[in-house]
């Protein structure tokens, strides 16, 4: 099995497993039981992990809240910001058509609470038109939420510029960093983000944990999604899962140290994959521009075939049509249709996500498998 679906989820790094394992075996204790030594040891481990997560994105540890993942973090940032602000003057929440479903649904859900979600269209590249955003911001806006890197096309928004425009209009800025964190160098302070969502399992950490960065100065205020024991400064109740937090911290530490070299290596593999497929599949097309794009991502249209048939024809290759969440859906990808693709073109598109554990041999094997499958499925075109 060659795993090229690293945007759906990544395998846990063995070093992450090693860091987590003691917390899954010898260490009981609730990190909130700071009355006794076992609880304090767990609490110390959680805080060390929090510091590593903060360091990856240029935040301070006190600005990091643990959540169950990026979906929860996105819900918490968007609904939390709106509910904290309540019924004040700024009721508009701006996001874009290519955002992850959980961002779009969080924004849309707020309409029922009296807010005004606005979903901006994107250019065929995936970029947001700055004039569109400027126009949208003429209505007093509470929050804008734009992802750093798209989960299907890998397209990178110009977060700095988008954020500056939003701040100039008095809005706060949230970004879903799930696909970007650990893959490219990010500095929340430099980008001027007020809130940002992270997921451990997209950067070789475990599933079941994520984080929300919440800016201290100027302070970003959010209401909790749910309450209880008051953990995470009251913003997110529930026992922090010590082993998963430790694994997340280790994954962030590794990413911080290795990100630059890894991105170069993975981009070379990505280019090799594109060149190899392009040479053997006539009419192959890239969705979105070659740059700016995540090092590991390709979203490719295979003319004249259905992507689902290609996936079925390559059982030894783990690839996807798009977002994992909706991969069993019949509906075309909302991301690709937002770029202007027809339903047919979207259905002919595959997402290939290269990651840390892929080798050049994997890439060459994937080229062989995909081009052979394509030739079987679209013989007339392949011979043309």
């Amino acid at each position, binding site marked *: *099995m060659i*795993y090229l*679906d690293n945007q*759906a*989820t*990544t*395998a846990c790094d063995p070093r992450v497993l090693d860091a987590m394992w003691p917390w*899954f075996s010898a260490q*009981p*204790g*609730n990190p*909130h*039981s*700071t*009355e*006794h*030594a*076992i*609880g304090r040891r767990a609490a110390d481990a959680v805080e060390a992990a929090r510091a590593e997560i903060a360091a990856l994105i240029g935040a301070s540890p006190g600005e990091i809240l643990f959540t*169950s*993942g990026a*979906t*929860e973090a*996105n*819900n918490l940032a968007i609904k939390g910001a709106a509910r904290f602000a309540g019924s004040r003057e700024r009721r508009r929440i701006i996001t874009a058509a290519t955002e992850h*479903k*959980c*961002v*779009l*649904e*969080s924004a849309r859900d707020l309409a029922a609470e009296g807010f005004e979600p606005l979903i901006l269209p994107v250019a065929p590249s995936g970029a947001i038109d700055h004039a569109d955003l400027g126009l949208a911001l003429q209505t007093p806006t509470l929050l804008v939420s734009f992802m750093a890197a798209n989960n299907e096309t890998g397209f990178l928004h110009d977060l700095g510029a988008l954020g500056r425009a939003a701040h100039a209009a008095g809005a706060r800025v949230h970004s879903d960093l799930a696909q970007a964190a650990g893959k490219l160098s990010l500095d929340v302070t430099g980008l001027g983000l007020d809130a940002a969502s992270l*997921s451990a399992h997209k950067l070789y950490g*475990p*599933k*079941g*944990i994520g984080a929300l960065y919440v800016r201290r100065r100027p302070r970003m205020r959010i209401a909790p*999604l*749910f*309450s*209880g*024991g008051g*953990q995470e400064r009251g913003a997110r*109740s*529930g*026992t*922090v*899962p010590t*082993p*998963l937090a430790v694994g997340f911290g280790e994954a962030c530490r590794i990413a911080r140290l290795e990100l630059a070299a890894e991105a170069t290596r993975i981009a070379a593999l990505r280019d090799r994959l594109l060149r190899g497929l392009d040479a053997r599949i006539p009419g192959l097309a890239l969705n979105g521009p070659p740059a700016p794009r995540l090092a590991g991502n390709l979203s490719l249209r295979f003319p004249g075939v259905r992507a*689902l048939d290609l996936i079925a024809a390559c*059982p030894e*290759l*783990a*690839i*996807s049509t798009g977002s*994992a*969440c*909706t*991969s069993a*859906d019949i509906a075309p990808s909302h991301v690709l249709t937002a770029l202007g693709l027809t339903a047919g073109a979207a259905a002919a598109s595959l997402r290939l996500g290269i990651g840390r554990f892929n080798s050049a041999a994997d890439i060459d094997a994937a080229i062989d498998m995909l081009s052979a499958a394509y030739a079987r499925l679209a013989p007339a075109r392949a011979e043309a």
Partner: protein
Amino acid sequence: MQHAPQEIYLDANASEPLRPAAQRAILESLTLPGNPSSIHAAGRAARRLLEDSRTVIARTVGAAPADIILCSGGTEANAIAIAGLSPGRRVLMGATEHDAVRAAAPGAEILLVHPQGGLDLAALAAALEGKGPALVCLMLANNETGVLHPIAAAAALCHARGALLHVDAAQAVGRIPVDLGELGADTLAFSAHKLGGPKGAGALALASGLAIAPLIAGGGQERGRRGGTPALPAIAGFAAALAESGEGVAQLAPLRDRLEQGATAVGALVCGGGARLPNTTCLALAGARAETQVINLDLAGVRVSAGAACSSGKVTQSHVLAAMGLGALASCAIRVSLPWNATDAQVDGFLAAYAEMAARLAPAAARTISAA
């Protein structure tokens, strides 16, 4: 350097040590690379593990797999139930509920409990006479005293009045047999790390066919009722721990009883009574503040708590014990909760440390007992 004493962990109600079967399941699932929502072979393998785990979890509490919502833990499970069921209903809850439930419905009407800690069913019946449909929230087992509420009887009262019943079973599942249908609950919340599974997973079981709105939107996972990539290793460990816990931890009752006898012999009073969890006791020592006791025991290598773990460090008077009418004693009680793997030697170690502490901190209490 002082010799570190042997650690005795008796704070299972804060978090149970991981069961061996859960450890194995976590290790196996951590090496699976796929996302359960992906359609390729790696995704399908992850999906199979997710659904097999769901089936085990469902079967344990007598629910159908389709009626299980997997989430991050007990707090979230309680929040999904209460946020989902409370619109259009007034909320009634027991006076001794966990903060996760109390915080989810801050305006709730509070139902009195008896001095022993169990729900006053007459108070529930009277409250249900009030106007409008109700959602009643009751815990199956209390986290501080282990006292069990009469849930089946409460459910009968609720259903006769058209009320829904949400049960927080976080401390009960895995320790005593729990069956959604026998309890008559509409929703049942429970947590993996309270039963020997890992932190980071929990579940809400729904009565057959009950629909509920999501708290966390997006992605369509859990039949649209809870967005987010499922925490596969934690969920696999959750199911394995449940399968291993079988009928529960009834074998701990004699250990707990011996611990209580030893503690009361040196001046402790047991808070709460009637039907209780087999692993929990709440011991008050008149005149000795709970946090002082916990610190003293901690120095002796014995890990217990003064109540719920959540409020981290800040020891305030227990609302549970106050509701039971314990007055000043409510500030003088510690919770001792035996983990599934507790041993006789740990009980002996606890009793030695406790007797030494009681003689030092509350000599008066000890004298009263020995004179009686």
